[in-house]
């Protein structure tokens, strides 16, 4: 091992007996070890004035207090916003209760006509010894509501209970 190798042993804080023996005999490595030790002592020679500590603690505590205050401000803002929203909702509900919305128009019919279903027209019956009668169109009852239907009466209620709109329409939906 040369001195360069021993220097690595020195910086690595080797506690080997061989290193101790080498240091006894080698002035260069002794100087090297002394320099390393002096550098370490220089590293440890830190004197910090107490005011530096006080300043750090003061800054930390002030920062924490400021954050707490900001947090409290946000909390109060949130509470105030929630209160405003609740008041607004209450006002809307109160207003709608005081002035109810107009009722939906009711559509009513008077004497709704009965719709009689006619049987589906079957094929014409053909008999050999009779004349064939051709019917065009379905065969329905000769008399009944379908031929003379009663009009539908549509009654529309308005906001004003004294005003009722009555609308007469026929079965086809045309106004009369």
């Amino acid at each position, binding site marked *: 091992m040369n001195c360069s190798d021993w220097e690595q042993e020195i910086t690595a*804080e080797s506690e080997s007996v061989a290193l101790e023996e080498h240091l006894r005999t080698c002035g260069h490595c002794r100087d090297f070890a002394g*320099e*390393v030790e002096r*550098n*370490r002592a*220089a590293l440890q020679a830190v004197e910090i004035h107490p005011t*530096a*500590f006080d300043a750090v*603690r003061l800054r930390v505590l002030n920062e*924490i207090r400021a954050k707490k205050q900001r947090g409290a401000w946000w909390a109060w803002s949130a509470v105030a916003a929630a209160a405003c929203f609740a008041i607004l909702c209450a006002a809307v509900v109160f207003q709608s209760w005081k002035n109810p919305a107009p009722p939906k128009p009711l559509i009513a019919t008077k004497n709704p006509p009965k719709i009689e279903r006619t049987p589906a027209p079957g094929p014409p019956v053909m008999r050999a010894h009779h004349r064939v009668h051709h019917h065009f169109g379905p065969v329905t009852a000769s008399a009944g509501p379908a031929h003379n239907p009663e009009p539908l009466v549509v009654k529309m209620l308005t906001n004003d209970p004294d005003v009722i709109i009555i609308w007469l329409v026929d079965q086809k939906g045309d106004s009369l």
Partner: protein
Amino acid sequence: MADFRLTADDAGQPAGLIARAKLGDLDAFDQIMRLHEKQVLMTGLRLLGNMEDAQDAAQETFLRLYKSLNRLPDVLEMKSWLYRVTVNICNDVHRQRGRRKAEPLTGPEPVSSHPDPEKAWSEVERERLVEMALQTLPEKERAAVVLRDVQGLSTREVAEILGSSEVTVRSQISVARGKLKKFTDRYLRKRL
């Protein structure tokens, strides 16, 4: 578990102090800061090389501690946690400002009151040289040598804080000491 972890008794911070701080008691947190301020500020000063940055780093470290009080898994791990956070913050500062080039040495004035002014001047000069040399080291080596030689932690403790193996840390410390030695030699030879 590392040997250097504080117990509640030797730290002088009974569980009640921590519990009060968790509840927002700033006096209790102030007491906790007093217990650890030297450790944090001195580490920051050595890692960053100037008091202003070191105070900023210490402030940030304690603010993070305050935020993390409820999340710390074990109050007894506070010391190693503080070392880890301080080192990380200082590394961030270093990365932000870039590696500071070693300024040309303007020697401090000799200390006339010292029995041997020449020796006193040399010691002050060496302190400054070592401080400058530290700033030229890679961050891992710088943190390892500061925790080992300034804070006096064992290699195992340093490895645990830095998240490295003991072998790696031992190598980093050895290399860092060699670099410091070369740096101081270069300036001291120039002076001679």
